[in-house]
């Protein structure tokens, strides 16, 4: 492990410990946020370099990436793109190869490296490997759309126990788009089982704790008045065809009152890194979860069952902090004064 990574890990563990010592939100804001700022500064430096190196101006860069000019401006000032897909788009717009893309995802985005057994990543690895240059992102979107329209998920077809190393090798031997399509269809069972354990984990948690809602994710989401986007996500989980995104996983965990360990487990099953203390939003989530577990331990006899308690609490904390990048996340949480229950 190189020194940069070692220092990085050391810092992350340190911040994580410090978060667990925070008594309240004010302390979190005053003590922890200044430590994390450097991460955002690093990102601001990086993205500005990327834009300059791409030879595009900000508007062109935004257009190629498929985001608004405002979003690019925010990045330049240090706010992090909110999902992994956006990091992929940035890397493709920058004309990155596989190694640089993985570094971008892991070091700046705290996301997992490209994973060939996930459909999107598989296509991304292919287009990076073929060095399409400026056409990379267009090719990526085109191929992915075409494949997604045609793919048939055949659950009866049992996936071979192919190691990821062998799978990577097979993918690197794919010569052209037609071969790629064949490769993907032939291995559709592998793609459909990529998140199999993730789905099972979420479903099991719901069955174990919400049998009052008929035990299905869908009834639970309906019953609690979750936002339509989160309802779509749980309905897709039930049908085993949701592509997990990081903030949605965290949101789901909060809605299902999962603790820190469980949210990390979901992230792991979705092939992602655990919650990261060096991201402001996630540091707040960690604080909320630590605090909720602690309060709970002090109050074990409480029989009050409010399925939305953790959501309300999260909303309360997040709203007192000014974090524009998580607006979408906040609006998904139930209203504080919503007494529908």
């Amino acid at each position, binding site marked *: 492990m190189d020194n940069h990574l070692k220092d990085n890990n050391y810092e992350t563990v340190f911040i994580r410990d410090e978060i667990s010592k925070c008594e309240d939100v004010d302390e979190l804001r005053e003590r922890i946020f200044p430590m994390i700022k450097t991460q955002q500064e690093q990102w601001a430096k990086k993205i500005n370099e990327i834009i300059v190196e791409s030879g595009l101006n900000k508007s062109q860069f935004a257009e190629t990436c498929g985001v608004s000019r405002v979003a690019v401006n925010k990045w330049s000032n240090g706010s992090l793109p909110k999902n992994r897909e956006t990091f992929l788009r940035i890397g493709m717009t920058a004309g990155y190869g596989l190694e640089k893309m993985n570094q971008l995802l892991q070091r700046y985005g705290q996301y997992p490296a490209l994973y060939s057994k996930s459909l999107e990543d598989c296509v991304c690895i292919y287009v990076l490997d073929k060095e399409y240059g400026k056409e990379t992102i267009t090719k990526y979107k085109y191929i992915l759309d075409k494949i997604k329209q045609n793919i048939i998920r055949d659950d009866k077809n049992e996936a071979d126990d192919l190691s990821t190393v062998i799978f990577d090798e097979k993918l690197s031997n794919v010569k052209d788009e037609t071969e790629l399509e064949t490769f993907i269809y032939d291995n559709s069972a592998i793609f459909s089982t990529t998140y*199999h*354990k993730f*789905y*099972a*984990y979420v*479903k*099991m*948690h719901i*069955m*174990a*704790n919400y049998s009052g809602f008929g035990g299905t994710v869908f009834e639970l989401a309906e019953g609690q008045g979750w936002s339509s986007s989160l309802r779509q996500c749980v309905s897709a989980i039930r049908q*085993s065809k949701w592509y997990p995104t990081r903030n949605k996983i965290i949101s789901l965990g909060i809605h299902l*009152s*999962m*603790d820190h*360990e*469980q949210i990390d*487990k979901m992230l792991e*099953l979705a092939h992602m890194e655990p919650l990261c203390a060096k991201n402001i939003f996630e540091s707040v989530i960690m604080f909320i979860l630590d605090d*909720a*577990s602690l309060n*709970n331990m002090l109050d*074990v006899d*409480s029989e009050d*069952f*409010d399925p939305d*308690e*953790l959501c309300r609490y999260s909303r309360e904390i997040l709203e007192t902090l000014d974090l524009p990048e998580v607006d979408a996340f906040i609006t998904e949480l139930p209203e504080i004064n919503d007494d529908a229950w």
Partner: protein
Amino acid sequence: MMRGKKGNNLILIENGLLTSYMLDDKNVWEVGRPSKGNIPDIKLKSATVSRKHGKFQNMDGVWFYLDYNSKNGTIYNHKHINAGINGRVKPVMLETGDTFLFGGGEEEVINSKTIWGLYTTRVFEDLWRIMDSKGYKQLQFISDGRITTMMSPEKGLVIENENGIAIYMGDIIYMIGDMEVIGC
């Protein structure tokens, strides 16, 4: 060479007696101490086990253990299973080689009152063999031509590979498949 077949297998050792459960035979296995009107699928006799202690459950082919926040609890992979936020049940997703200790309280102490368990995804057709290992300080586990040497191991040590399994329980070693043990 004999290799273990794929399958979901739970091995329990209570009072020196080893029982193997083929989990795939059912979707849910209730674990508990039998009493009037309560007949669990996996019957544990120890008084430290709750009547309704927990269950093993299959979800879309993936096996989980769920503890009912039982009184003396369950230790899973050397760690006590705690309840989740607001007392929620925290199902644990099982992987081959996971170990359990039922009814042992917060600390992992293996004794005659506790029940030890192993989850494995390998099934062997032969029978479990027993070896007396009283007084041995050094143990050599031989399987598939490879030797693993252990000095005074802890009770509950598992040596597992594709060809065989050995479980060290102090005075006794349980073995199945291609596995031999030499002690001195």
